[in-house]
């Protein structure tokens, strides 16, 4: 059980974090300091289980006139069960980044450091999120498998990213080649996708393209209808064993999404599978733009939700 918490922050944010901790338990002794150069030896951090909540900048060697970190502070952080470094910076603070810094600063417990982005001094401060962190760090196991939401690792998303870009290329080509004859409807999935990706305005206007760009789009139009367009990026060994490549793509997407593949993406993968199975049969070798549009809209809506 945790009996002490060290808070290090040169700003008044430390008071807010102290309130967060105190709202959870009055039995935890909170020591809040404004500078790493202060002496905390009298609090006996070296001998009791404790955690440290530190503002990232206050550990930098030369910030705000701090010329050094007091040995007692270093000991308190070094012997902490968990160190949570926080920042309000818009770039966030990833755990691998702060662990690298901790190693650079010669902290032996760098694998127990976590980065978190929480705007303590703004109205966006996620008080329940910080409470979850303290509760988790205070628990006996505090395992990585049970990380509180604000400490979640950022995993690779390269398959989702790639697929959403392929969708955009496919839809843009479709719009460019067909807009001269059939006007899309801004209210249908295809139109919504073009508007969401920025290729079209709500009034139906498409991006103005130079002749050179139109030529480029026309040049690749047929290539975009082929299976290589959808699967080559996911075939690093260039096996062209599309069934296996497609299975691997499914598996990676499921891992990245951390859940079952949603219907819109699944439909696109099934459409790609049909093209693979068609073995060059022209009637089945073209994926419907509506299916691609729905897949893109899934990524788009997820992104919009994450930003609100």
């Amino acid at each position, binding site marked *: 059980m945790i009996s002490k918490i060290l808070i290090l922050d040169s*700003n008044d944010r430390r008071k807010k974090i102290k309130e967060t901790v105190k709202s959870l338990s009055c039995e935890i002794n909170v020591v809040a300091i404004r500078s790493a150069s202060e002496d905390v030896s009298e609090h006996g951090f070296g001998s009791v289980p404790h955690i440290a909540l530190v503002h990232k*900048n206050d550990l*930098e060697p030369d*910030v*705000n006139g701090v010329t050094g970190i007091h040995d007692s502070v270093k000991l308190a952080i070094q012997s902490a069960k968990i160190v949570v470094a926080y*920042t*309000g*910076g*818009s*770039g*966030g603070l*990833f755990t691998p*980044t702060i662990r690298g810094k901790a190693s650079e600063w010669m902290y032996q417990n760098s694998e127990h450091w976590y980065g978190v982005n929480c705007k303590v001094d703004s109205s966006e401060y996620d008080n329940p999120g910080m409470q979850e962190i303290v509760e988790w760090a205070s628990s006996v196991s505090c395992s990585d498998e049970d990380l509180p939401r604000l400490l979640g690792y*950022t995993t690779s*998303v*390269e*398959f*989702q*990213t*790639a697929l*959403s*870009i*392929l969708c*955009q*290329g496919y839809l*843009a*080509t479709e719009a460019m080649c067909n807009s001269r004859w059939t006007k899309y409807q801004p209210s249908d999935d295809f139109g919504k996708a073009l508007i*969401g*990706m*920025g*290729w079209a305005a709500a009034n139906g206007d498409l*991006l103005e393209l130079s002749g050179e*760009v139109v030529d*480029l*789009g026309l*040049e*690749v139009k047929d*290539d*975009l209808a082929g299976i*290589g*367009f959808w699967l*080559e*990026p*996911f*075939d*690093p060994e260039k096996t062209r064993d599309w069934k296996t490549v497609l299975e691997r793509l499914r598996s990676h997407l499921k891992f990245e999404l951390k859940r079952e593949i949603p219907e819109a993406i699944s439909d696109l993968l099934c459409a790609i599978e049909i093209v693979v199975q068609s073995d060059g049969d022209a009637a089945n070798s073209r994926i419907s733009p509506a299916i691609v549009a729905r897949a*893109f809209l899934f*990524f*788009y809506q*997820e*992104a919009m*939700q*994450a930003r609100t």
Partner: protein
Amino acid sequence: MILLPETNWQAKRNRFNHDWLKNKFSLTLERAVKIAQERIEDDEFAAKFIQIALPEFEIEIQNARALIESFESSMSPRVLLDRKPLNRLDDCIRDWLAFVVHACWKNRIRVADLVEAASKRLEQAFAAFYRLRHCIDSKGGTLEGQQLVCCLPGLLAFRDACGELGTAISKFPSRILVV
């Protein structure tokens, strides 16, 4: 949700806007303002502000300028076409996709507006800095604390301009936005 790892541009933006401007220089400016308002006396700090902190601004503002100018090339999702897995595509398709995602991104997040607004704030901060510098220089021969007192309006204008610059730079997206 698609969340890409930090890029060099974001790391540089963080170093300038969050680490230096907000958590270092702004705090220094606030203390200088208090001295100028005669709420506190600290001639030693005033001297350091004039001799060290202000010249530092001239260096850091160049970093801000480079940040703004490099935003479009560094943060466009177009850069992802040069990385795996999309770099495995045929060159011609990659060129087309690069054009599509870049044009869409510019249109979607209004890149030109963001860059223009930040550039304007940067020039305003720079102008406010020179007015303050000129004011301080014209009071040469007196104690630094007194120089700040005489230049309070310029100092306040400079502080506000720096705040506006920080806000404008913080409006740039913090991630490469694919959608």
